[in-house]
């Protein structure tokens, strides 16, 4: 079984935005930053499970829409004095295509 699933094109996600992948194990948020890097996290803030896909993306982090926790897009960890971590998924770009690996 191949691990990498094609989930869409880079342009399907707005710059500094996010889109949701629905899976049997819950939602995954795929982010695109201003440098056109892509990241994927479990779509749940470690604080109170807020949907990170609806947050504001800046640099390599996203601010959760519920209580403003800042989460690293690279490792899913809460930044600043907050503590917690959400799941990270491997994601890669091949040309314009985005591939996601569900085995986190």
């Amino acid at each position, binding site marked *: 079984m191949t691990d990498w*699933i094609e*989930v*869409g094109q880079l342009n*399907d*996600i*707005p*710059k*500094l*935005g996010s*889109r*949701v*992948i*629905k*899976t*049997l194990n819950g*939602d995954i948020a*795929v982010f695109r*930053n*201003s*440098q056109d890097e892509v990241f994927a996290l479990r779509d749940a803030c470690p604080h*109170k*499970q*807020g*949907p990170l896909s*609806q*947050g*504001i*993306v*800046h*640099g390599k982090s996203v*601010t959760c*829409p*519920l*209580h*403003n926790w*800042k989460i690293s897009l690279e490792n899913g960890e809460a930044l*600043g*004095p907050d503590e917690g971590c959400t799941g990270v998924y491997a994601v890669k770009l091949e040309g314009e295509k985005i591939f996601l690996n*569900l085995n986190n």
Partner: protein
Amino acid sequence: MKEKLVVIGNGMAGMRTVEELLQIAPEKFDITVFGAEPYGNYNRILLSPVLAGEKTINDIMLNDLQWYEENNITLHKGVKVTGIDRKKCKVTADNDLVVDYDRLLIATGSDPFIIPVPGHELPGVISFRDIHDVDLMLDAAKTKKHAVVIGGGLLGLEAANGLMKQGMSVTVVHLMDWLMERQMDEVSGAMLKKSLEEKGMQFMLKASTSEITGDGKVQGVKFTDGSELAADLVVMAVGIRPNISLAKQVGLHCERGIVVNDTMQTFDPKIYSVGECVQHRGSTYGLVAPLFEMAKVCANHLAAYGIGIYKGSITSTKLKVTGIDLFSAGDFMGNETTEDIVVRDAKRGIYKKIVINDDKIAGAVLYGDTIDGAWYFQLMREKTNIRDIRDQLMFGQAHLGDSGHGGNVVANMSDDAEICGCNGVCKGDIVNAITSKGLFTLEDVRAHTKASSSCGSCTGLVEQLLESTLGGDYSVPEAKPLCACTEHTHDYVREEIRKQHLTSIPDVYKSLNWKSEDGCASCRMALNYYLLSTWPKEYSDDPQSRFINERAHANIQKDGTYSVIPRMWGGMTTPNELRAIADVAEKFGLETVHVTGGQRIGLYGVKKENLPTVWKDLNDRGLVSGHAYGKALRTVKTCVGREWCRFGTQDSTAIGIKLEKMTWGSWMPHKFKMAASGCPRNCAEATIKDFGVVCVDSGYELHIGGNGGVKVRATDLLCKVNTEEEVLEYCAAFVQLYREQARYLERTAPWIERVGFSYVKESVVDNAEKRKELAARFKISQEENETQDDPWKMRSTDGRDQAQFIPLKVVG
């Protein structure tokens, strides 16, 4: 290879600079620190509580040795720098160590001043400056009885209080007519003396020390008038002197302190200096708040960002003696050109004096009740015109229409008293975090404890806690930067957007030297609003710089679903609309249907992917977005007015609907609520709205700046007008003034308190021409950017912006 930074001085100013530097340019320097004391960096201002036995040394450590290791900083503790070779860029230490530097930071602080009277070198004569001094005093207190403290200033009284707590009998000797003459006037100084005497402290005022007597150790103090006091411990606390000996020795220009420019550079451009050792624009400082402002600027320039200048500080003082409340700031003595307002209640032990110059606070001294110190200080620093609040000034901020949390005296609360009701943070948690984590600012406390980080209504209490825990060392920065991405304030950024004709967010970043590549969740939303409101014809909205609610045109709820609230114009609805809402609720299984405070109906639990269909169904029956999710015009609440009510004087419902039709869809700095009541009984509660109309028989009273939320504030009566047309014009002008001038996320109530009601009245009422221009600009902005096109219809029927509502992919 990294550049080398050497820091001479391991105290609060030097290490704060290093901390700031590590935050903004962590990879730039290899850092070496020399500290003469054999410890890590500790909070010197909390030495008094240590002496008083209220805290331990461990409580006041700011940076332990582990911190230096973690940040790859080489610390030479207990090592004194003896020379600097400015040509070869090397420093030499007393252990023969030689270290090269590319940049050097001198933060040698200050030394206690010792009066050179005979006997000043006797064992038992000590100063009050560092841990070593505190250890000596604690030691002495174990065996000795009589202490004399020379100096009745802040430091002397804190030392005397500590020694008294340790069981000694203490006499404070002071040269001047009253205590703390640099911070207090004669009346408050006398009240302070009385309170301290009640605690058991003894005083000798107008006493000049001539000699310290003793044979091999201290035995007494002699005065110029011939009198004498027995003593087996003498603490000299008459003042501090900037420690400039090293700088002087290596030829750096010094006067009273090491002279620095506005970027904290000395006369040698490779050498910077911060803290108590510097002299900036002729002033030296002995409190912590200015040091921190210096540290920020210095770090910025060390990191080669080259922005930010230090303009000097205005400081305030609080005495850290438990049970004594004292606050002073600015020119509290006044002169022939100033006016005083004084409240004096000897029985309650309360004295308050505010010195006013040209309608602005020039200084204040408070004794016994210092709860409003922070507020007066803020008014003073921001040079707020107090003309409009002069009659209430002395009663404090709590009396400015604040029936929220005002009036609580935080110092009297128990440790388990809840301060932040949103996040459940108690007083003890906050005080603990301030001392154990070394916090100094409101932002620090918000980040570490979450207190005051949600609705903000406890901000004043948290500021009081900072103040009472840190004493005079806490202060709000004079000009708060918009966010951590920039040094600039809201007002400056907005002005530059206008002046430089900046029309996009990247333009702002570039022209104003933003520190982060694409801003943060705070500044992006503010900039999007400023650009949109400044350039309604040119700017195109950036959805990624809007909070999710405004991006999705619905309110996100705690489970990630949304609420949908259609507009009900002027609070009026029809059977058909109610049926439409009921149908949608049933069709989508929305069990929670709630009548809102703004006279409309909210549907809860809508999944994001269903929003466009929900909207379509509502649109089809004539309902449009209520903007309940936006920093925008929310609702216009009305009563039924003279159409039905036997008391109604005008058609308040009709005027409400007209106001709503005119203003709906407009983006604002914050949410904006209106109401129109048909008579002075005011059933629509127009006097707690941002803009309220109260109909009277002869016309319409217009009210502004009310708020029914966090902090209840009744409106100010703006004026009375005669016709509906005038109501609409004044409303448009007021809204536009608010849109153009308030800071992002500032409601009308605090905005009006900041700029002054008179200013608003002058702009909207007194100056007819300005009013018409404002109203015209509002009209233009309402015509641009599809402002009054229903955003729900665009995203349902018109198929705009669909991606966010559908998953990118469904797997499995």
